[in-house]
Protein backbone atom coordinates (compact mmCIF):
# COMPACT_ATOMS: atom_id res chain seq x y z
CA UNK A 1 0.00 0.00 0.00
CA UNK A 2 0.98 3.63 0.36
CA UNK A 3 4.67 3.73 1.18
CA UNK A 4 5.39 7.43 0.99
CA UNK A 5 8.30 7.32 3.38
CA UNK A 6 8.88 3.70 4.28
CA UNK A 7 12.07 4.23 6.25
CA UNK A 8 10.60 6.98 8.40
CA UNK A 9 7.50 5.01 9.26
CA UNK A 10 9.53 1.90 9.97
CA UNK A 11 11.74 3.93 12.25
CA UNK A 12 8.72 5.37 14.02
CA UNK A 13 7.18 1.94 14.54
CA UNK A 14 10.46 0.57 15.83
CA UNK A 15 10.76 3.49 18.24
CA UNK A 16 7.19 2.90 19.34
CA UNK A 17 7.92 -0.78 19.98
CA UNK A 18 10.93 0.09 22.10
CA UNK A 19 9.00 2.75 24.03
CA UNK A 20 6.14 0.38 24.81
CA UNK A 21 8.54 -2.29 26.09
CA UNK A 22 10.59 0.16 28.14
CA UNK A 23 7.36 1.55 29.55
CA UNK A 24 6.26 -1.86 30.78
CA UNK A 25 9.77 -2.55 32.03
CA UNK A 26 9.58 0.52 34.24
CA UNK A 27 6.45 -0.78 35.94
CA UNK A 28 8.77 -2.84 38.11
CA UNK A 29 8.78 -0.31 40.93
CA UNK A 30 6.28 2.28 42.10
CA UNK A 31 8.94 4.99 41.80
CA UNK A 32 9.61 4.39 38.11
CA UNK A 33 6.09 3.36 37.15
CA UNK A 34 4.71 6.84 36.42
CA UNK A 35 7.51 7.46 33.96
CA UNK A 36 6.98 4.02 32.49
CA UNK A 37 3.31 4.63 31.83
CA UNK A 38 4.17 7.94 30.16
CA UNK A 39 6.84 6.29 28.01
CA UNK A 40 4.29 3.78 26.81
CA UNK A 41 1.82 6.58 26.09
CA UNK A 42 4.53 8.39 24.14
CA UNK A 43 5.15 5.21 22.17
CA UNK A 44 1.48 5.07 21.30
CA UNK A 45 1.48 8.71 20.25
CA UNK A 46 4.48 8.19 17.98
CA UNK A 47 2.77 5.25 16.30
CA UNK A 48 -0.49 7.14 15.80
CA UNK A 49 1.18 10.25 14.39
CA UNK A 50 3.37 8.20 12.07
CA UNK A 51 0.34 6.30 10.80
CA UNK A 52 -1.75 9.41 10.22
CA UNK A 53 1.05 11.16 8.34
CA UNK A 54 2.12 8.12 6.38
CA UNK A 55 -1.07 6.60 5.10
CA UNK A 56 -2.66 8.52 2.29
CA UNK A 57 -5.69 8.92 4.50
CA UNK A 58 -8.80 9.93 2.61
CA UNK A 59 -11.35 11.05 5.15
CA UNK A 60 -9.15 12.91 7.58
CA UNK A 61 -12.08 14.82 9.14
CA UNK A 62 -13.83 11.60 10.01
CA UNK A 63 -10.72 10.23 11.64
CA UNK A 64 -10.04 13.40 13.59
CA UNK A 65 -13.62 13.39 14.78
CA UNK A 66 -13.24 9.77 15.90
CA UNK A 67 -10.02 10.56 17.74
CA UNK A 68 -11.55 13.56 19.49
CA UNK A 69 -14.73 11.76 20.51
CA UNK A 70 -12.75 8.77 21.78
CA UNK A 71 -10.24 10.90 23.65
CA UNK A 72 -13.02 12.89 25.26
CA UNK A 73 -14.92 9.85 26.48
CA UNK A 74 -11.73 8.15 27.62
CA UNK A 75 -10.41 11.09 29.58
CA UNK A 76 -13.73 11.81 31.24
CA UNK A 77 -14.00 8.19 32.33
CA UNK A 78 -10.42 8.21 33.59
CA UNK A 79 -10.94 11.45 35.47
CA UNK A 80 -14.15 10.62 37.28
CA UNK A 81 -14.09 6.88 37.88
CA UNK A 82 -13.95 5.91 41.54
CA UNK A 83 -10.99 3.79 42.55
CA UNK A 84 -13.36 1.12 43.84
CA UNK A 85 -14.87 0.91 40.35
CA UNK A 86 -11.55 0.11 38.67
CA UNK A 87 -12.44 -3.54 37.96
CA UNK A 88 -15.55 -2.40 36.11
CA UNK A 89 -13.70 0.23 34.12
CA UNK A 90 -10.93 -2.14 33.10
CA UNK A 91 -13.57 -4.66 32.12
CA UNK A 92 -15.35 -2.15 29.93
CA UNK A 93 -12.14 -0.94 28.29
CA UNK A 94 -11.18 -4.54 27.49
CA UNK A 95 -14.46 -4.80 25.65
CA UNK A 96 -13.74 -1.64 23.69
CA UNK A 97 -10.33 -2.95 22.65
CA UNK A 98 -11.88 -6.22 21.53
CA UNK A 99 -14.65 -4.37 19.72
CA UNK A 100 -12.18 -2.20 17.86
CA UNK A 101 -10.23 -5.29 16.77
CA UNK A 102 -13.41 -6.96 15.54
CA UNK A 103 -14.37 -3.83 13.60
CA UNK A 104 -10.94 -3.63 11.98
CA UNK A 105 -11.24 -7.26 10.92
CA UNK A 106 -14.72 -6.58 9.53
CA UNK A 107 -13.54 -3.46 7.73
CA UNK A 108 -10.65 -5.33 6.13
CA UNK A 109 -13.05 -8.07 5.08
CA UNK A 110 -15.27 -5.51 3.43
CA UNK A 111 -12.37 -3.83 1.67
CA UNK A 112 -10.93 -7.10 0.41
CA UNK A 113 -14.09 -8.57 -1.02
CA UNK A 114 -15.03 -5.25 -2.64
CA UNK A 115 -11.76 -5.33 -4.60
CA UNK A 116 -11.69 -7.81 -7.45
CA UNK A 117 -9.05 -10.32 -6.34
CA UNK A 118 -10.26 -13.10 -4.03
CA UNK A 119 -8.45 -12.83 -0.71
CA UNK A 120 -6.05 -15.69 -0.04
CA UNK A 121 -6.46 -18.36 2.63
CA UNK A 122 -3.99 -16.78 5.02
CA UNK A 123 -5.72 -13.41 4.98
CA UNK A 124 -9.19 -14.93 5.39
CA UNK A 125 -8.04 -17.03 8.34
CA UNK A 126 -6.48 -14.07 10.14
CA UNK A 127 -9.59 -11.99 9.50
CA UNK A 128 -11.82 -14.70 10.96
CA UNK A 129 -9.51 -15.11 13.94
CA UNK A 130 -9.32 -11.39 14.66
CA UNK A 131 -13.07 -10.99 14.30
CA UNK A 132 -13.76 -13.98 16.57
CA UNK A 133 -11.42 -13.04 19.44
CA UNK A 134 -12.50 -9.40 19.18
CA UNK A 135 -16.23 -10.12 19.23
CA UNK A 136 -15.95 -12.66 22.05
CA UNK A 137 -13.92 -10.17 24.08
CA UNK A 138 -16.46 -7.43 23.48
CA UNK A 139 -19.60 -9.37 24.40
CA UNK A 140 -17.87 -11.21 27.26
CA UNK A 141 -16.65 -7.92 28.70
CA UNK A 142 -20.07 -6.34 28.39
CA UNK A 143 -21.64 -9.21 30.33
CA UNK A 144 -18.89 -9.05 32.95
CA UNK A 145 -19.43 -5.30 33.30
CA UNK A 146 -23.16 -5.85 33.53
CA UNK A 147 -22.68 -8.37 36.32
CA UNK A 148 -20.44 -6.07 38.32
CA UNK A 149 -22.77 -3.12 37.74
CA UNK A 150 -25.82 -5.18 38.71
CA UNK A 151 -27.40 -4.90 35.25
CA UNK A 152 -27.12 -8.64 34.67
CA UNK A 153 -27.93 -11.11 37.43
CA UNK A 154 -24.72 -11.68 39.36
CA UNK A 155 -25.50 -15.29 40.21
CA UNK A 156 -24.30 -17.91 37.73
CA UNK A 157 -26.91 -18.18 35.00
CA UNK A 158 -27.11 -21.79 34.00
CA UNK A 159 -29.33 -24.09 32.06
CA UNK A 160 -29.39 -27.75 31.18
CA UNK A 161 -26.87 -29.06 28.66
CA UNK A 162 -25.13 -25.74 28.72
CA UNK A 163 -21.64 -27.08 28.00
CA UNK A 164 -23.05 -29.19 25.17
CA UNK A 165 -24.78 -26.14 23.71
CA UNK A 166 -21.55 -24.14 23.85
CA UNK A 167 -19.68 -26.93 22.14
CA UNK A 168 -22.25 -27.25 19.40
CA UNK A 169 -22.33 -23.51 18.73
CA UNK A 170 -18.55 -23.53 18.54
CA UNK A 171 -18.71 -26.31 15.94
CA UNK A 172 -21.29 -24.34 13.97
CA UNK A 173 -18.94 -21.36 14.00
CA UNK A 174 -16.05 -23.48 12.73
CA UNK A 175 -18.19 -24.93 9.97
CA UNK A 176 -19.36 -21.47 8.99
CA UNK A 177 -15.77 -20.24 8.99
CA UNK A 178 -14.89 -23.07 6.64
CA UNK A 179 -17.64 -22.00 4.28
CA UNK A 180 -16.57 -18.35 4.36
CA UNK A 181 -13.01 -19.34 3.54
CA UNK A 182 -14.25 -21.28 0.52
CA UNK A 183 -16.57 -18.55 -0.70
CA UNK A 184 -15.30 -15.33 0.80
CA UNK A 185 -17.72 -12.89 -0.79
CA UNK A 186 -20.87 -13.90 1.08
CA UNK A 187 -21.57 -11.01 3.43
CA UNK A 188 -24.62 -12.75 4.87
CA UNK A 189 -22.67 -15.69 6.18
CA UNK A 190 -19.93 -13.45 7.54
CA UNK A 191 -22.48 -11.34 9.40
CA UNK A 192 -24.00 -14.48 10.87
CA UNK A 193 -20.58 -15.54 12.09
CA UNK A 194 -20.09 -12.15 13.77
CA UNK A 195 -23.39 -12.60 15.56
CA UNK A 196 -22.48 -16.13 16.58
CA UNK A 197 -19.13 -15.02 17.99
CA UNK A 198 -20.93 -12.33 19.95
CA UNK A 199 -23.38 -14.85 21.41
CA UNK A 200 -20.55 -17.25 22.28
CA UNK A 201 -18.74 -14.55 24.24
CA UNK A 202 -21.83 -13.74 26.26
CA UNK A 203 -22.68 -17.41 26.86
CA UNK A 204 -19.13 -17.93 28.04
CA UNK A 205 -19.36 -15.36 30.83
CA UNK A 206 -23.03 -15.69 31.85
CA UNK A 207 -22.61 -18.96 33.80
CA UNK A 208 -19.80 -17.50 35.91
CA UNK A 209 -20.74 -15.93 39.26
CA UNK A 210 -20.11 -12.23 39.66
CA UNK A 211 -17.61 -12.96 42.43
CA UNK A 212 -15.36 -14.60 39.85
CA UNK A 213 -15.54 -11.64 37.49
CA UNK A 214 -12.02 -10.38 38.35
CA UNK A 215 -10.50 -13.56 36.95
CA UNK A 216 -12.73 -13.31 33.89
CA UNK A 217 -11.77 -9.67 33.39
CA UNK A 218 -8.10 -10.49 33.61
CA UNK A 219 -8.58 -13.27 31.09
CA UNK A 220 -10.48 -10.90 28.79
CA UNK A 221 -7.57 -8.47 29.22
CA UNK A 222 -5.33 -11.14 27.72
CA UNK A 223 -7.91 -11.72 24.98
CA UNK A 224 -8.04 -8.05 24.04
CA UNK A 225 -4.26 -8.21 23.58
CA UNK A 226 -4.47 -11.33 21.48
CA UNK A 227 -7.19 -9.72 19.39
CA UNK A 228 -4.85 -6.81 18.70
CA UNK A 229 -2.12 -9.29 17.73
CA UNK A 230 -4.49 -11.06 15.34
CA UNK A 231 -5.32 -7.68 13.82
CA UNK A 232 -1.60 -7.16 13.37
CA UNK A 233 -1.51 -10.27 11.21
CA UNK A 234 -4.44 -8.96 9.17
CA UNK A 235 -3.04 -5.52 8.44
CA UNK A 236 0.51 -6.95 8.38
CA UNK A 237 1.84 -4.57 11.00
CA UNK A 238 4.30 -6.13 13.47
CA UNK A 239 3.81 -3.27 15.95
CA UNK A 240 0.30 -4.54 16.61
CA UNK A 241 1.58 -8.09 16.95
CA UNK A 242 4.20 -7.06 19.51
CA UNK A 243 1.98 -4.79 21.58
CA UNK A 244 -0.83 -7.31 21.56
CA UNK A 245 1.49 -10.11 22.65
CA UNK A 246 2.78 -8.00 25.56
CA UNK A 247 -0.78 -7.47 26.76
CA UNK A 248 -1.58 -11.13 26.22
CA UNK A 249 1.38 -12.21 28.32
CA UNK A 250 0.45 -9.79 31.07
CA UNK A 251 -3.17 -10.95 31.18
CA UNK A 252 -2.17 -14.61 31.25
CA UNK A 253 0.26 -14.05 34.12
CA UNK A 254 -2.24 -12.07 36.19
CA UNK A 255 -4.97 -14.66 35.62
CA UNK A 256 -2.60 -17.41 36.61
CA UNK A 257 -1.54 -15.48 39.71
CA UNK A 258 -5.13 -14.98 40.85
CA UNK A 259 -5.99 -18.63 40.38
CA UNK A 260 -2.92 -19.72 42.33
CA UNK A 261 -3.67 -17.32 45.18
CA UNK A 262 -7.25 -18.58 45.30
CA UNK A 263 -6.00 -22.16 45.07
CA UNK A 264 -8.31 -22.95 42.16
CA UNK A 265 -7.64 -23.96 38.60
CA UNK A 266 -8.65 -21.67 35.77
CA UNK A 267 -10.95 -24.40 34.43
CA UNK A 268 -12.70 -24.51 37.78
CA UNK A 269 -13.25 -20.76 37.72
CA UNK A 270 -14.61 -20.83 34.18
CA UNK A 271 -16.63 -24.01 34.19
CA UNK A 272 -17.18 -24.84 37.87
CA UNK A 273 -19.69 -23.22 40.16
CA UNK A 274 -18.39 -21.74 43.32
CA UNK A 275 -19.45 -19.31 45.99
CA UNK A 276 -23.12 -20.06 45.61
CA UNK A 277 -24.03 -23.05 47.71
CA UNK A 278 -23.42 -24.57 51.09
CA UNK A 279 -22.49 -21.39 52.89
CA UNK A 280 -25.60 -20.88 54.98
CA UNK A 281 -25.61 -24.45 56.22
CA UNK A 282 -21.96 -24.22 57.21
CA UNK A 283 -22.38 -20.93 58.96
CA UNK A 284 -25.37 -22.15 60.88
CA UNK A 285 -23.56 -25.18 62.22
CA UNK A 286 -20.47 -23.27 63.11
CA UNK A 287 -22.29 -20.50 64.92
CA UNK A 288 -24.16 -22.98 67.03
CA UNK A 289 -21.05 -24.81 68.13
CA UNK A 290 -18.64 -22.02 68.87
CA UNK A 291 -18.38 -19.04 71.12
CA UNK A 292 -17.80 -15.62 69.68
CA UNK A 293 -16.02 -12.95 71.73
CA UNK A 294 -17.27 -9.46 71.03
CA UNK A 295 -15.55 -6.22 71.75
CA UNK A 296 -16.86 -2.65 71.63
CA UNK A 297 -15.28 0.40 70.06
CA UNK A 298 -13.98 1.88 73.34
CA UNK A 299 -12.21 -1.28 74.42
CA UNK A 300 -10.79 -1.93 70.95
CA UNK A 301 -9.46 1.64 70.81
CA UNK A 302 -7.70 1.10 74.14
CA UNK A 303 -6.11 -2.13 72.97
CA UNK A 304 -4.85 -0.49 69.80
CA UNK A 305 -3.53 2.66 71.43
CA UNK A 306 -1.60 0.79 74.09
CA UNK A 307 -0.09 -1.80 71.77
CA UNK A 308 3.49 -1.60 70.63
CA UNK A 309 2.85 -3.04 67.19
CA UNK A 310 -0.36 -3.10 65.18
CA UNK A 311 -0.81 -4.77 61.79
CA UNK A 312 -3.81 -3.69 59.72
CA UNK A 313 -5.25 -6.27 57.31
CA UNK A 314 -7.60 -4.63 54.80
CA UNK A 315 -10.03 -6.71 52.74
CA UNK A 316 -12.91 -6.40 50.36
CA UNK A 317 -15.17 -4.99 53.10
CA UNK A 318 -12.89 -1.96 53.43
CA UNK A 319 -13.31 -1.30 49.71
CA UNK A 320 -17.08 -1.70 49.86
CA UNK A 321 -17.34 0.64 52.85
CA UNK A 322 -14.89 3.11 51.22
CA UNK A 323 -13.11 3.11 54.56
CA UNK A 324 -9.56 3.67 53.29
CA UNK A 325 -9.38 7.33 54.33
CA UNK A 326 -10.74 6.49 57.76
CA UNK A 327 -8.13 3.75 58.07
CA UNK A 328 -5.35 6.17 57.21
CA UNK A 329 -6.68 8.56 59.84
CA UNK A 330 -6.74 5.82 62.48
CA UNK A 331 -3.21 4.76 61.63
CA UNK A 332 -2.04 8.36 61.97
CA UNK A 333 -3.68 8.62 65.41
CA UNK A 334 -2.03 5.38 66.50
CA UNK A 335 1.38 6.50 65.23
CA UNK A 336 0.84 9.64 67.31
CA UNK A 337 0.58 7.32 70.31
CA UNK A 338 3.89 5.73 69.41
CA UNK A 339 2.39 2.56 67.96
CA UNK A 340 4.24 0.93 65.06
CA UNK A 341 1.63 0.41 62.32
CA UNK A 342 2.08 -1.79 59.24
CA UNK A 343 -0.40 -2.85 56.58
CA UNK A 344 -0.42 -6.49 55.49
CA UNK A 345 -1.48 -6.98 51.90
CA UNK A 346 -2.66 -10.36 50.66
CA UNK A 347 -2.19 -10.83 46.90
CA UNK A 348 -5.91 -11.38 46.29
CA UNK A 349 -7.39 -9.17 48.98
CA UNK A 350 -10.33 -7.30 47.52
CA UNK A 351 -11.63 -8.15 44.10
CA UNK A 352 -8.77 -7.34 41.77
CA UNK A 353 -4.99 -7.89 41.88
CA UNK A 354 -3.40 -5.01 43.73
CA UNK A 355 -6.82 -3.64 44.72
CA UNK A 356 -5.86 -2.76 48.30
CA UNK A 357 -2.65 -1.08 47.21
CA UNK A 358 -4.52 1.32 44.98
CA UNK A 359 -7.17 2.14 47.59
CA UNK A 360 -4.60 2.75 50.31
CA UNK A 361 -2.46 4.78 47.94
CA UNK A 362 -5.54 6.88 47.22
CA UNK A 363 -5.81 7.53 50.95
CA UNK A 364 -2.18 8.69 51.08
CA UNK A 365 -0.74 5.57 52.68
CA UNK A 366 2.92 5.26 51.68
CA UNK A 367 3.64 2.09 49.70
CA UNK A 368 6.68 1.53 51.88
CA UNK A 369 4.31 1.00 54.81
CA UNK A 370 2.70 -1.99 53.05
CA UNK A 371 4.08 -5.47 53.60
CA UNK A 372 3.55 -8.43 51.28
CA UNK A 373 2.35 -11.76 52.60
CA UNK A 374 5.76 -13.47 52.59
CA UNK A 375 7.31 -10.61 54.54
CA UNK A 376 4.62 -10.15 57.15
CA UNK A 377 3.65 -13.74 57.94
CA UNK A 378 6.66 -14.46 60.18
CA UNK A 379 6.00 -11.16 61.98
CA UNK A 380 2.48 -11.97 63.23
CA UNK A 381 3.76 -14.10 66.11
CA UNK A 382 5.41 -10.98 67.57
CA UNK A 383 2.52 -8.64 66.85
CA UNK A 384 0.45 -7.25 69.69
CA UNK A 385 -2.78 -6.51 67.84
CA UNK A 386 -3.91 -7.34 64.32
CA UNK A 387 -6.83 -5.29 63.05
CA UNK A 388 -8.70 -7.10 60.27
CA UNK A 389 -10.94 -4.66 58.38
CA UNK A 390 -13.54 -6.28 56.16
CA UNK A 391 -11.32 -9.20 55.22
CA UNK A 392 -12.44 -12.77 55.54
CA UNK A 393 -11.15 -15.52 53.22
CA UNK A 394 -7.61 -14.18 53.15
CA UNK A 395 -7.33 -14.69 56.93
CA UNK A 396 -9.19 -18.01 57.13
CA UNK A 397 -6.98 -20.53 59.00
CA UNK A 398 -9.03 -23.40 57.56
CA UNK A 399 -6.86 -22.96 54.46
CA UNK A 400 -3.97 -24.18 56.59
CA UNK A 401 -5.63 -26.71 58.86
CA UNK A 402 -8.74 -28.22 57.28
CA UNK A 403 -8.11 -30.49 54.29
CA UNK A 404 -11.87 -30.65 53.70
CA UNK A 405 -12.13 -26.90 53.14
CA UNK A 406 -12.57 -25.75 49.56
CA UNK A 407 -9.81 -23.20 50.11
CA UNK A 408 -7.42 -25.70 51.72
CA UNK A 409 -3.90 -24.99 50.52
CA UNK A 410 -4.52 -21.36 49.59
CA UNK A 411 -1.81 -19.19 51.14
CA UNK A 412 -3.28 -16.89 53.81
CA UNK A 413 -2.20 -14.19 56.24
CA UNK A 414 -1.54 -15.95 59.57
CA UNK A 415 -3.33 -13.38 61.73
CA UNK A 416 -4.43 -16.10 64.17
CA UNK A 417 -0.83 -16.28 65.39
CA UNK A 418 -0.88 -12.74 66.77
CA UNK A 419 -1.42 -12.00 70.46
CA UNK A 420 -4.78 -10.38 69.76
CA UNK A 421 -6.87 -10.13 66.64
CA UNK A 422 -9.74 -7.70 66.19
CA UNK A 423 -12.02 -8.37 63.22
CA UNK A 424 -14.26 -5.60 61.90
CA UNK A 425 -17.21 -6.79 59.81
CA UNK A 426 -20.96 -6.45 59.88
CA UNK A 427 -21.92 -10.03 60.75
CA UNK A 428 -20.60 -13.58 60.81
CA UNK A 429 -21.54 -13.96 57.16
CA UNK A 430 -19.00 -15.58 54.90
CA UNK A 431 -17.00 -13.71 52.26
CA UNK A 432 -16.23 -14.39 48.64
CA UNK A 433 -15.61 -18.13 48.98
CA UNK A 434 -18.88 -18.61 50.84
CA UNK A 435 -17.38 -20.65 53.67
CA UNK A 436 -17.23 -20.28 57.40
CA UNK A 437 -14.15 -18.84 59.08
CA UNK A 438 -12.84 -20.58 62.26
CA UNK A 439 -10.79 -17.45 63.01
CA UNK A 440 -13.92 -15.77 64.40
CA UNK A 441 -14.19 -18.38 67.17
CA UNK A 442 -10.57 -18.47 68.25
CA UNK A 443 -9.62 -17.57 71.83
CA UNK A 444 -7.64 -14.47 70.96
CA UNK A 445 -10.04 -13.17 68.31
CA UNK A 446 -12.48 -10.41 69.12
CA UNK A 447 -15.28 -9.40 66.75
CA UNK A 448 -16.15 -5.74 66.31
CA UNK A 449 -19.40 -5.74 64.37
CA UNK A 450 -20.46 -2.85 62.16
CA UNK A 451 -19.85 -1.07 58.90
CA UNK A 452 -16.12 -0.69 58.36
CA UNK A 453 -16.12 3.06 57.82
CA UNK A 454 -18.36 3.84 60.79
CA UNK A 455 -16.40 1.59 63.10
CA UNK A 456 -12.98 2.81 62.03
CA UNK A 457 -14.11 6.44 62.38
CA UNK A 458 -15.34 5.56 65.85
CA UNK A 459 -11.98 4.01 66.73
CA UNK A 460 -10.19 7.15 65.53
CA UNK A 461 -12.21 9.47 67.75
CA UNK A 462 -11.77 7.17 70.74
CA UNK A 463 -8.01 6.99 70.24
CA UNK A 464 -7.88 10.76 69.84
CA UNK A 465 -9.78 11.20 73.10
CA UNK A 466 -7.39 8.97 75.05
Amino acid at each position, binding site marked *: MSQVMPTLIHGAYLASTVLLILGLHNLRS*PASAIGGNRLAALGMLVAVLATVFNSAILNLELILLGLIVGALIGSLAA*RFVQMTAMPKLVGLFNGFGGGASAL*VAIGEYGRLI*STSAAPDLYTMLTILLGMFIGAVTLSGSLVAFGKLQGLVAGAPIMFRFQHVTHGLLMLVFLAGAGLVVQAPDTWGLFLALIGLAFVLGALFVLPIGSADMPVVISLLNACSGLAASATGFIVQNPLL*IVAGALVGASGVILTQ*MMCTSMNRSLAHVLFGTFGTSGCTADTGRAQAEHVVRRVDVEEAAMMLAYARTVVIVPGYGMAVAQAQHAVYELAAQLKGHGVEVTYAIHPVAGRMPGHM*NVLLAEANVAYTDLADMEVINPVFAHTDVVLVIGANDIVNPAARSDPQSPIYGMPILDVDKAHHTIVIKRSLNPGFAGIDNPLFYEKNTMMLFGDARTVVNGLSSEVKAL
Partner: protein
Amino acid sequence: MIQMAEGLYGGVLVFVLAMFVGFEIITKVPPTLYTPLMSGTNAISGIVLIGALVVAGTDSGTIGAVVGFGAVVLATVNVAGGFLVTDRMLRMFKKGRNQP
Protein backbone atom coordinates in the same frame (compact mmCIF):
# COMPACT_ATOMS: atom_id res chain seq x y z
CA MET B 1 18.35 -19.66 2.69
CA ILE B 2 15.12 -18.84 4.36
CA GLN B 3 13.36 -15.73 3.24
CA MET B 4 12.91 -13.66 6.38
CA ALA B 5 10.14 -12.06 4.55
CA GLU B 6 7.54 -14.75 4.49
CA GLY B 7 4.57 -13.18 6.20
CA LEU B 8 3.33 -15.89 8.49
CA TYR B 9 6.70 -17.14 9.72
CA GLY B 10 7.97 -13.64 10.39
CA GLY B 11 4.77 -12.68 12.14
CA VAL B 12 4.69 -15.76 14.33
CA LEU B 13 8.36 -15.31 15.24
CA VAL B 14 7.73 -11.70 16.23
CA PHE B 15 4.70 -12.82 18.24
CA VAL B 16 6.67 -15.50 20.09
CA LEU B 17 9.54 -13.14 20.87
CA ALA B 18 7.16 -10.46 22.13
CA MET B 19 5.40 -13.03 24.30
CA PHE B 20 8.75 -13.90 25.87
CA VAL B 21 9.54 -10.24 26.44
CA GLY B 22 6.12 -9.84 28.04
CA PHE B 23 6.48 -12.85 30.32
CA GLU B 24 9.96 -11.90 31.48
CA ILE B 25 8.97 -8.29 32.15
CA ILE B 26 5.61 -8.90 33.78
CA THR B 27 6.92 -11.51 36.20
CA LYS B 28 9.12 -8.77 37.62
CA VAL B 29 6.20 -6.41 38.32
CA PRO B 30 5.44 -6.36 42.07
CA PRO B 31 1.89 -7.18 43.27
CA THR B 32 1.58 -3.60 44.52
CA LEU B 33 1.31 -2.47 40.93
CA TYR B 34 -1.02 -5.13 39.56
CA THR B 35 -4.02 -2.84 39.20
CA PRO B 36 -2.09 -0.12 37.31
CA LEU B 37 -0.52 -2.92 35.28
CA MET B 38 -3.93 -4.12 34.22
CA SER B 39 -5.16 -0.69 33.20
CA GLY B 40 -1.83 0.16 31.57
CA THR B 41 -1.72 -2.97 29.43
CA ASN B 42 -5.35 -2.25 28.69
CA ALA B 43 -4.29 1.02 27.14
CA ILE B 44 -1.56 -0.74 25.18
CA SER B 45 -4.06 -3.15 23.67
CA GLY B 46 -5.59 -0.02 22.18
CA ILE B 47 -2.71 -0.22 19.69
CA VAL B 48 -5.37 -1.63 17.41
CA LEU B 49 -6.07 2.05 16.84
CA ILE B 50 -3.30 1.89 14.24
CA GLY B 51 -5.30 -0.70 12.33
CA ALA B 52 -8.47 1.32 12.84
CA LEU B 53 -6.83 4.41 11.34
CA VAL B 54 -5.88 2.44 8.26
CA VAL B 55 -9.38 1.02 7.85
CA ALA B 56 -11.07 4.37 8.44
CA GLY B 57 -8.65 6.09 6.07
CA THR B 58 -9.27 3.80 3.14
CA ASP B 59 -12.02 4.61 0.69
CA SER B 60 -14.42 1.71 0.98
CA GLY B 61 -17.92 3.11 0.89
CA THR B 62 -20.26 4.12 3.66
CA ILE B 63 -20.06 0.82 5.52
CA GLY B 64 -16.29 1.01 5.53
CA ALA B 65 -16.41 4.55 6.85
CA VAL B 66 -18.89 3.69 9.61
CA VAL B 67 -16.98 0.59 10.67
CA GLY B 68 -13.70 2.50 10.59
CA PHE B 69 -15.12 5.40 12.56
CA GLY B 70 -16.48 3.03 15.21
CA ALA B 71 -13.14 1.27 15.48
CA VAL B 72 -11.28 4.58 15.85
CA VAL B 73 -13.63 5.78 18.61
CA LEU B 74 -13.52 2.52 20.58
CA ALA B 75 -9.74 2.18 20.33
CA THR B 76 -9.17 5.82 21.26
CA VAL B 77 -11.37 5.52 24.35
CA ASN B 78 -9.24 2.54 25.32
CA VAL B 79 -5.93 4.31 24.73
CA ALA B 80 -6.77 7.69 26.23
CA GLY B 81 -8.78 6.32 29.14
CA GLY B 82 -6.30 3.57 29.90
CA PHE B 83 -3.17 5.71 30.04
CA LEU B 84 -4.88 8.54 31.92
CA VAL B 85 -6.45 6.38 34.59
CA THR B 86 -3.17 4.55 35.07
CA ASP B 87 -1.38 7.85 35.47
CA ARG B 88 -3.98 9.01 37.96
CA MET B 89 -3.57 5.83 39.97
CA LEU B 90 0.21 5.85 39.91
CA ARG B 91 0.35 9.44 41.06
CA MET B 92 -1.40 8.31 44.23
CA PHE B 93 1.44 5.93 45.13
CA LYS B 94 3.66 7.66 47.65
CA LYS B 95 6.86 6.73 49.36
CA GLY B 96 7.08 6.87 53.15
CA ARG B 97 9.26 9.59 54.54
CA ASN B 98 11.14 7.30 56.92
CA GLN B 99 11.92 4.55 54.43
CA PRO B 100 14.45 4.94 51.62
